[in-house]
């Protein structure tokens, strides 16, 4: 039986839209429906077939949500733009043309220039690397940390719960920007310290959320059943409790995206985030604030970028939550 399963796993076609790399199947009209049948079969022959089938069904469910697909599309386009920044940028984002300050959008400067005569379009492209990179880095730091602290506190209860939650409260009690300020001041100002500082102040709500979810989950029979298998508490938390906390956390993360961008901008404005020649969307808005009434495009362009990014992340997160929950299908 085990051998048979691995054999089918080795033979399985690649269930991807792109053609398999090895022997391409003969181009016949029935090829695509057959792959679809293989994916949607009622009786998968192997674990990998079942897993691919689930992924395909998740994709089908995701595709039914046009807003989520739009969000994904916007994010993919943005990623493409910032990856191709060196090709698409019309100017060097750092080069100043003091004679051409605050120029209106034109053929030479598609989105105009800023207060030092730098090309806004090019700065937006390169700034996206910094801003989106920071957001992703913060989320990657914050979500697992909050999830872990919250789940452990909620599941272990007693002393652990009190200890971890008081630590969380301490971080929650500090004004966010001040804690970040103190932290960055102690370190070298820069993108990395800004990321760590924001992460340090952003995790407590995640821990609270995960703990609240865990408190209900730990009382369920399926957790009791998991304990009855003889699994260690670590295994129960990691494999059985955490996956149930993910959907609500995913929503919270996407809602937080824009506020992370704005905190990063705040730090940048105070000179503690991305350092001057380096373009960053939040800092771009912050410096353009002074001429927002006369030369509005300088501030509006990065504003649109931040708005589009947060909205896209929100839509994507909403769609993901629905797909993450197998009951929705």
């Amino acid at each position, binding site marked *: 039986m*085990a051998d048979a399963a691995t054999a089918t796993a080795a033979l399985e076609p690649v269930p991807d839209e792109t053609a398999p790399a090895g022997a391409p199947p003969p181009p016949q009209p029935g090829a695509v429906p057959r792959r679809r049948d293989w994916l949607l079969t009622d009786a998968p022959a192997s674990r990998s077939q079942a897993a691919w089938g689930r992924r395909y069904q998740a994709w089908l469910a995701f595709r039914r949500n046009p807003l989520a697909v739009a969000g994904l599309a916007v994010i993919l386009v943005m990623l493409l733009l910032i990856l191709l920044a060196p090709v698409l940028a019309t100017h060097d984002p750092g080069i100043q043309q003091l004679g051409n300050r605050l120029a209106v959008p034109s053929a030479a400067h598609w989105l105009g220039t800023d207060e030092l005569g730098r090309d806004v379009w090019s700065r937006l492209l390169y700034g996206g690397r910094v801003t989106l990179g920071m957001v992703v880095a913060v989320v990657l730091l914050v979500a697992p940390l909050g999830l872990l602290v919250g789940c452990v506190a909620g599941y272990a209860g007693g002393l652990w719960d009190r200890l971890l939650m008081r630590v969380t409260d301490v971080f929650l009690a500090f004004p966010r920007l001040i804690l970040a300020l103190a932290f960055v001041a102690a370190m070298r100002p820069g993108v990395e310290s800004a990321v760590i500082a924001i992460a340090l102040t952003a995790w407590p709500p995640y821990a609270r959320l995960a703990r609240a979810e865990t408190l209900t989950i730990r009382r369920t029979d*399926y957790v009791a059943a998991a304990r009855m298998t*003889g699994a260690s508490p670590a295994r129960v938390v990691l494999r059985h409790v955490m996956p149930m906390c993910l959907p609500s956390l995913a929503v919270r993360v996407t809602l937080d995206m824009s506020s992370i961008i704005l905190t990063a901008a705040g730090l940048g404005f105070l000179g503690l985030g991305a350092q001057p020649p380096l373009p960053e969307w939040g800092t771009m808005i912050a410096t353009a604030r002074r001429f927002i009434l006369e030369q509005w495009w300088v501030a509006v362009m990065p504003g649109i970028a931040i708005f589009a990014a947060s909205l896209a992340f929100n839509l994507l997160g909403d769609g993901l939550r629905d797909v993450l929950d*197998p009951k929705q299908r």
Partner: protein
Amino acid sequence: MISASDLDVRFGSNHAVRGVSFDVAEGETFGLVGESGSGKSTVLRAIAGLITEWTGRISVDGRALGRKRDRAFFRTVQMVFQDPYGSLHPRQTVDRILSEPLVVHGVPDAEARIARALEEVALPRTARFRYPHQLSGGQRQRVAIARALVADPRVLLLDEPTSALDVSVQAEVLNLLADLRAARGLTCILVSHNLAVVAHLCGRLAVMQGGRIVEVMDEAALRAGRAVHPHTQDLIRLSHELEGT
């Protein structure tokens, strides 16, 4: 095989189980009967190690048990819960649910065991990669039974295993449990509020009320209505009434 003596369980000020003692021989099926709040499920959960607020002595297979149970204990003792909707992880497929005990205990040959377990509980192969919410109540309880048996335990604790099921499905699950018990020589404790179900599966039973065992009797005495304690007599009378005789 299983023995409990002077078992006491307190949750704060709530004294749920008071001085419960009983012994279950190897291969026997022992019933615990009572109304809600009688402490019957609490006794079962204390034996399973799911609650730690107990005092007294519990031993399984001659080994006295502490508050914390080691992995070997869970290899010997398994449990089936009442609600098949709540006892299966909603985001794990049947395959994953069944492989979990095997992974924890490091049992080799998982593939064959899972296939055999599914066959044993008469689930179709198509069910293997389904999520619990795609199965009917009876199928879910079969998955729960398969999970309990996949690592070959010797003791099975059954907490109202059929009370959330339709009567036609209840009959199928009861038959299945009887078959598996005979085939594997399992020792079982069955908790139920339904006297007819207990009489069907158990050779001996204890009637609980207010956290105490008020009477221990065998199946024949139960069917003949030879009960001494008034509470037992009440339960038997009600059961007959509901059967419509």
